[in-house]
């Protein structure tokens, strides 16, 4: 069972209390953006086998959104952080690098 600590209320919540919200840090492109950018925002997903950043909602708790860093191949949780973060906090990045020295932050992948 997946357990995440809600950074808003501090409760260690199991997954029956949480609603998954998909990939985090996706940029919503505004007016004048290309079809490709809007497609990327709506549909194109990272879907890595490994470190992944996601949105979650503490649906049956405080009701607030938050973000989580997790490994999809082991279900290990690296930490949770506020939904207002525009980038992954350094503390979480260093925790991931300590556990997975080979991990490369996947900025290089371009949307199809």
């Amino acid at each position: 069972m997946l357990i995440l600590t809600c950074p808003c209320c501090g409760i260690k919540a199991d997954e029956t209390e949480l609603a998954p919200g998909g990939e985090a840090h996706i940029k919503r492109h505004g007016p004048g953006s290309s079809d490709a950018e809007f497609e990327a925002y709506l549909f194109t997903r990272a879907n890595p086998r490994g470190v992944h950043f996601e949105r979650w909602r503490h649906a049956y708790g405080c009701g607030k959104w938050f973000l989580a860093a997790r490994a999809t191949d082991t279900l290990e949780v690296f930490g949770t952080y506020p939904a207002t973060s525009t980038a992954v906090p350094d503390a979480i990045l260093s925790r991931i690098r300590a556990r997975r020295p080979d991990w490369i932050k996947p900025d290089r992948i371009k949307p199809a």
Partner: protein
Amino acid sequence: MKRYSAFSIFREALRNNSGWQRAWAAPEPKAQYDIVIVGAGGHGLATAYYLARNHGIANVAVLEKGWLGGGNTGRNTTVIRSNYLQDPSAAIYEKSRSLYETLSQDLNMNIMFSPRGVMMLAQTEHEVRGYKRTAQANALQGVATEFIPPARVRELCPIIRIDGPRYPVLGALWQPRAGTARHDAVAWGYARACSAMGIDIIERCEVTAIRSNAGQVAGVETTRGAISCGKLALVVAGHSGHLAEMAGFRLPIESVALQALVSEPIKPCLDVVVMANTVHGYMSQSDKGEMVIGGGADGYNNYTQRGSFHHVEETVRSLIETFPMLSRLKMLRQWGGIVDMTGDRSPILSKTPLGGCYVNCGWGTGGFKAIPGSGWAMAELLAKGHSPLAEAFGLDRFREGRFIDESVAAGVAH
């Protein structure tokens, strides 16, 4: 390759089963192939089979990181049906279903296709309206289905509780020639037929990188060495995102765990497949007598082939409402597979941003039924560059907004 027949069983019985041959060869990978297919699940193997049979292309390798059929093809609940609403889905799934009718003869392997009929229960007014509409659409598409009243549901399936308090059965969409088949035999049958036509099936060979040259695919790196190829087909279901990343692009796909479970074997009591989409559960009885039950999918990305326990609980809880006699059954096994869910829940058969590289994925929770038809269309796409059956399932539909308005791979296994 020696043919399987009633006579061969008789002959082998007389000589202590000493004359059976290997069903497929285990060759060393060659340095170069015309076409390399990644993934020896049903879809990859069927693609290879129809490449050789329909298009005469046999310089083909199918690379598999584990063992053949060990992915979702060997983990599903084997429901086969083609009662879809939209024309492109009905076309490819009905092609597939009709190929299943003669697949045992075509492959010379008993895949145990059992057209016992699939019944999709309508348990809300919305479902009644939706299924009536589907039945009308199917009539126009030439797919034989009908909407049946509750009395007929009870006749076909006496163990059902028609007048349940929460979700009474208001009717059902009935497809008499839908059913089940033996999943392993489908993979084995295609593999054996491929091997006999000279296709190399290479197990324990994981693709670790994809090589390209000026925007054109050149080959793959594997745990058994580099292999170059003219064309590359990625047919890896839940691992599609991972392989696409190697090829340098992203897909509109997320990989999640989907579970199924079987009960202890009991006497025959259910000779059709019943699906109850409102309560997210469906069931059939295997030849061994086990009740085969499909569960719900997790909502978050996962590659571990393990699902969450609470989904099993939810599935069983809702099935018991419709089938009260199940309440005393013990469950024998539970397992999970990683399914590839696309943005519109319909599959992708398409060229990709990398030249010469094609994908066949996104079958999600419902691609066992599609194996023959998908292989047929994918082979045509690889051989000719286009295929009428695959036309609507291109990747560009996500950019152009031409979605297929149909949850063919809904949140449950089927």
